[in-house]
Each structure stands twice: as C-alpha cells, then as structure tokens.
C-alpha cells in the first residue's frame, strides 16, 4: 500500500545501528569485516613494535600482551570476576531504580520536574569523581562505593531512555486501554511498559559498558584490592606494560561481555518487534 517497503527496510536497519552491529544482519560482513580490520591492525602493530624496536613502555607488542594475558589468566579472570560482579550489581540496581524512577516520573509529572535538576547534574558530571566521597560514605573496606558508582552510571541513561520510551505509547494503544476501561495498573503492564521496553534496552546497552568502566575506574580511588583496575595501575606503576595491557584486555573483554549480554537480551525480548 505504500511504496516504501524496500527503502523502508533499508532505513530501519541503519537507524538502529549500534544495536545491530555485533550480530545478525548481513552476518558475514558484520563478523568478518571487523575481524579482518582487527587482524590487520594487530599485525601492523606487531610489525611496528618489532621493526622499530619500540620499548614496551611506549607501546607493548600484541604478542607480549597476549603472552602476559595467558600467563596471568588466573589473575585476569579473578580481577574480571570481582570488577564484573560490581558492575553487574550496579547494572541491575541502577537499571531497576532507573526504570522505577522513570515509571513514577511518567505517572506524576511533578516528580519528573523535581528530579530534573538532579538528573541534569548527574548526566553531565563525571560519576567517578563521586568515588572518593562515596568511599567515605559507604566504607573503604567494602565494594559498595564501586557498585554505587556503576549504578549511578547506569541509572541516568536507563532513566532517561525509559522515560522517553514510556512516552512513546501510541495514542491508539492508549485509546484502546481506555475503551477497555483498563485500570492504571493494567495499562502499565499491558501497554506502557512493553512499549518502553526497547528504550529501556537502549539505556541498558549504553549503561552496560559504562558500568564496567565506572566500576573499574572507581577502584582507582581506593577500596579493597581485588579488581582489574587495581591490577592495571599496579602493573603500569612497575613499568610492566604488557601485563598492564593484558589486564586492560581483560577489561575490554569484560565490557564486551556486558555489552553483548545486554544486546542479546534486547534482541531476545524485542524479537517480535518490527518497524
């Protein structure tokens, strides 16, 4: 009935780029191309380091990093587990609070208005700058401050995106609910929340890698000596850059796991939506 289907599909596939990048789509290209590019970069990097005899404190070679990664796999995994757990707790708590907050703000615009300055402040501030005061507030001997930093980093994108999503309820669906004389609660679960779901996931996806980074950088400001962040800095402090970058590699992989997991969850939950 419209003459856009062909183009329509095209635009849709690209307007959701970040969510469609790491899976699906034209599978071959989206998997092979980045791997090929990555391989080229790594080979060139290795050649550069070996060829120019670059010192490891200027640029460690990929092979050295890989070697350290394997040699210290236990430590990397242990650190990743701890940092990952903090990030996960932050992600879950931040996401739950973000969604709840957005639901409340959507129901009562007064709350929305009152939260506005705090949300604006949190969305522009470096959350990690809060780490020092959070350690004082929650204790330097527990992981709480790191989890809160991660949680705050997740809270804001989830809150903002969810709020946006909650406001996407189509008038026709709202009318439908009214026509069925649905209660406020019924409206929320039958229409409002499912409508917002893709937006919640957009927020989550942004939040997922932020959670890892934030939990990690928070370690930098103190706390129990357990995670990847601490390992990166102490390896770097002793000039063992290949080891430091082995931990960084661990952090990158951890971030990708988080990103991939939320992306997968998103795909699964929203698998039946089309444009």
């Amino acid at each position: 009935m419209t003459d856009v289907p062909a183009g329509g599909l095209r635009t849709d596939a690209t307007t959701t780029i970040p969510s469609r990048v790491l899976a699906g789509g034209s599978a071959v290209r989206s998997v092979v191309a980045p791997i090929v590019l990555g391989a080229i970069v790594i080979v060139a990097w290795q050649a550069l380091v070996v060829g120019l005899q670059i010192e490891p404190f200027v640029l460690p070679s990929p092979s050295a990093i890989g070697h350290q990664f394997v040699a210290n796999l236990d430590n990397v995994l242990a650190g990743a587990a701890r940092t990952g757990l903090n990030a996960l707790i932050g992600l879950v708590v931040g996401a739950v609070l973000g969604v709840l907050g957005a639901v409340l703000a959507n129901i009562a615009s007064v709350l929305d208005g009152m939260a506005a300055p705090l949300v604006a402040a949190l969305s522009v501030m470096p959350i990690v700058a809060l780490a020092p005061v959070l350690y004082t507030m929650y204790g330097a001997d527990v992981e709480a401050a790191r989890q809160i930093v991660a949680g705050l980093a997740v809270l804001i994108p989830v809150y903002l995106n969810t709020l946006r999503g909650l406001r996407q309820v189509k008038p026709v669906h709202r009318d439908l609910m009214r026509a069925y004389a649905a209660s406020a609660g019924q409206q929320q679960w039958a229409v409002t929340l499912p409508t917002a779901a893709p937006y919640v996931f957009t927020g989550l996806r942004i939040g997922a890698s932020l959670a890892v980074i934030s939990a990690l950088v928070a370690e930098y400001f103190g706390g129990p000596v357990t995670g990847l962040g601490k390992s990166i800095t102490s390896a770097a402090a002793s000039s063992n850059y290949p080891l430091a970058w082995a931990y960084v590699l661990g952090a990158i992989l951890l971030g990708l796991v988080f990103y991939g997991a939320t992306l997968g969850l998103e795909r699964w939950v929203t698998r039946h939506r089309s444009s």
Partner: protein
Amino acid sequence: MRRLRSIGLGLAGLLLAAAVWELYKTFGPENGVVVAGRTILPRTSDRAMPHVWEMAGRLFEPAVGHSGPPLWQNVLEAGLFSLRIAAVGWVIGVVVGLALAVVMSGLKIAEAAVLPWVILSQTVPLIAIAPLVRRWGSALSTDGFEWESWYSVAVIAGYLAFFPVAVGMLRGLRSPDATHVDLMRTYGAGWWRTLRALRLPASVPYLLPALRLAAAAAVIGVVVAEVSIGLRGGIGRMIIEYAQAAGGDPAKPWAPIFGAVVLGLIAAGFVTLLGLPLRRYRRSEVTA
C-alpha cells in the same frame, strides 16, 4: 508559565533533596543502614555527610588558611581551565566523529569493519590510556613544537567525545527517507552533493543531541585525565588535592564535585545555544 513551573519544580526538587539529606543525616544510624552485611544507606557522620550548609558555606571560605580568595573562586578558575581543555577535546571529538560517520555512512564495508571497534574503544579504561597518550605526545615533540600536558588531556577528552558523535551522526546521515535518497539519484546527484544537500541537513536532529553528549563526555574525559596525569589547574587535580584535606575539612572535597557539575551544565548549555541557528533543520515533515 511553563518555564516558571519547571523552574519552581526544579528548585523544589533540590530543596527536597537537601531536606532528605539533612533528615537522613539527623535520624539515620551513624554507621549507615546495613542489611545482611551490606551497607545500603550511607553513614551519617560529619565526615561522610557534611551538612548541606557546611558544603555550601565552605565555598565562601578561603581555600587554604584564613585569608585569600573564597573557595568558589578557586573552583571557578579550575572549572574554566578544565572547560577550555574540554572545549578543545570536544572539537577534536566532533571532527573525528564526523569524519568517521561520513566515511561509515558512505561505505557499508567501512561501517561493518569500523563500528565494532568504535564501540570497543569505549570499553578501554581511560586510566590505561592517559599515560600512553602523554608519552606518544611527547614523542611528537620537536624543537619547534612542544607537546604540553594539557594536549594529552584534550586528546583524551576527544577520545570520549568522538563516540557519541560518530554513532549519532552515522544514524543521522542514514536517516533520510529512502524517497529522498532516490530523489537525489533521480537528479543525478553524486555522493558529495547528496551529502551536502540531503544527508547533512537531515542529520541535524541527530547531531545536536550527539554534540550535547559529546560535551558531557569531554568534561568527564578532562576530569579523569587530569586526575590521571596530575595536570595542574583543573577540576580533576583539585579532586586529588582537596582530598588530602578531607579528614580535617570534610566539606572541602565536595567543592570540585559541584564544580564538575557546573562545568558539565555550562558545556551542555553551550551546545544548546549552538543548536539555535540550526533550528530550521529540526522541522520534521508532517505528512498530511
């Protein structure tokens, strides 16, 4: 009217937050609310939660000693210092982000190859990058050109800022309706003309939020990088320095935090101003 209401509500929200802070500080347990061994709510000591008026009042006392300019002035100066670097970082990020987006939007294969790495780049902890950047920067120094520390900070800010721009602009450049793209083809317009006449204008609604996110990211990058490499003069270094006084002067470490917030708000506000002349590009087509 609407504005007044939102300002009023915002103030009410801030007052409420302050009231909650003070109420909790007064009635909350000294050691925080601990549930199953986990601290859920913070400690209420003066060290952990200074009174709101102490945090505010501290801004009007001298930074060190009993004379000298009030603390807020130091924070302001540090804020402006960081803001300048953030602005440079923002520009770097915007230029790089735009370039990447244009390349990716033009070449599917480039998008497929590059975009995952763009996302991946943001999972690298800044604290690992900061010293490297400084070192590489120094390697660029020649007799005529000296790599200064603040360049490193700006580059790191750019490293964070380019991401929202690249992703947002890619969406924006891909946002024109298929009809519009077809139309340009019927006019025999090439890649460059299509970019100028169609894709760039169409991307404006995506560009502005991306620029705002980039501004916030640049500020974050500057603060973290300043901490990391200890660059003097900005908010980040102030966080380290004022922390040393945290024991005896618990309200003091809050000052750079407020500074960071103001800094971010100024940066975001500036981008909003930038958007004003572009308003006409934000009209969305209303179909019948």
